[in-house]
């Protein structure tokens, strides 16, 4: 697997598919050369991201785009409902997701691009 390779996974926004996403993320984190501690963090983060996104999904499906680097993995989740990155008065769900994802990941952000809200997270090898 080359540095910067992308893998796209489209799944229904249903809890039963969290495992599919988790296992894919674990597999790709392993490809990125992460040790099991890093992989476990990626699994945790992706599960939180899945739950967060499935509650705010703008469609019936979620697209997970994984970008695998040497010792790192970037995950982008879309499409989320517009306004999910609003600064003012984030809801409790967002605050909780931020608390967990910012603790686990090296980068975490919610952004809007072309009227589509996305969740992006990055985990790097320690």
């Amino acid at each position, binding site marked *: 697997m080359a540095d910067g390779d992308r893998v796209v996974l489209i799944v229904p*926004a249903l809890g039963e598919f969290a495992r599919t996403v988790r296992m894919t993320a674990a597999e790709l984190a392993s490809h990125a050369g992460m040790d099991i501690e890093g992989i476990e963090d990626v699994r945790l983060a992706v599960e939180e991201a899945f739950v967060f996104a499935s509650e705010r999904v703008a469609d019936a499906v979620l697209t997970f785009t994984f970008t695998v680097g040497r010792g790192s993995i970037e995950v982008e989740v879309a499409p989320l409902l517009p306004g999910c990155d609003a600064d003012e008065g984030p809801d409790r769900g967002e605050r909780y997701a931020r608390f967990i994802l910012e603790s686990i990941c090296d980068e975490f952000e919610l952004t809007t691009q072309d009227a589509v809200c996305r969740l992006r997270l990055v985990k790097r090898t320690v």
Partner: protein
Amino acid sequence: MAFTPHRRTTRPSRRLVWDKQLTHELFVAYRVDGDESARDELVEMYLNLVKYLASRFRNRGEPVDDLVQVGTIGLIKAVDRFDIERAVEFTTYATPTIVGEIKRHFRDKGWAVKVPRRLQELSFKVNQAVDTLTSRLQRSPTVPEIAEYLEVSPDEVLEAFETFDAYNFVSLETDRTSDGAETFSILEYIGQDDQLLSVVDDRAVLTAALKGVGPQEQRVLYLRFFQGLTQTEIAEKLGISQMQVSRLLRRTLRILREGIVPEGSE
């Protein structure tokens, strides 16, 4: 009167397909007009969804009828919490709530979901291999290293992670080998300006959310998210395996998430 004449004559089929228009009308009747019979009709209409979801947990030591019963509680919660303004289909919204209730039932019973013996054994071996290799390499091992050590494929190792993570919650309750773990409460360590407290606004909410979290789990949570320790460091500190730390963390986060962000609260 919110009822429309046709809605009582339109019934959902036995297949897993529901009439979106009828669903919307019933929610409007229930929410806007306060029609309780519309609520009952919604519950009845989506019972097939509960039965379908409950059937996926068959052969796991619990009668399906019991699972349908607890799943129905989830359905009722979903009906009561569903926001008709949200651009989400009711089935999408209700499914995690129903499955959550069913899983909670298993958890409360303390039963493990059945796993093939091969995977159980492999999961156990992977757990031991992680400990052995961590000690030998003086760092956390990689999946290929574990696979080579056990002479299995990397895919099997990853599958074992999932298995290990999902099952045998109860045995963890007895893994309290560290001093003070029996009485540890994270609330004692949370200050006025703490980030976790700022998540929930209210200490009472946090207290309630932590109700289902045992002292060992709270300690792991504290060490990981407040002290910033790695899983390996926590494992060493508590005298348990890194895999157990990982499982405790995921379990704790799920309980916390359910308590802090109940479905439909947004």
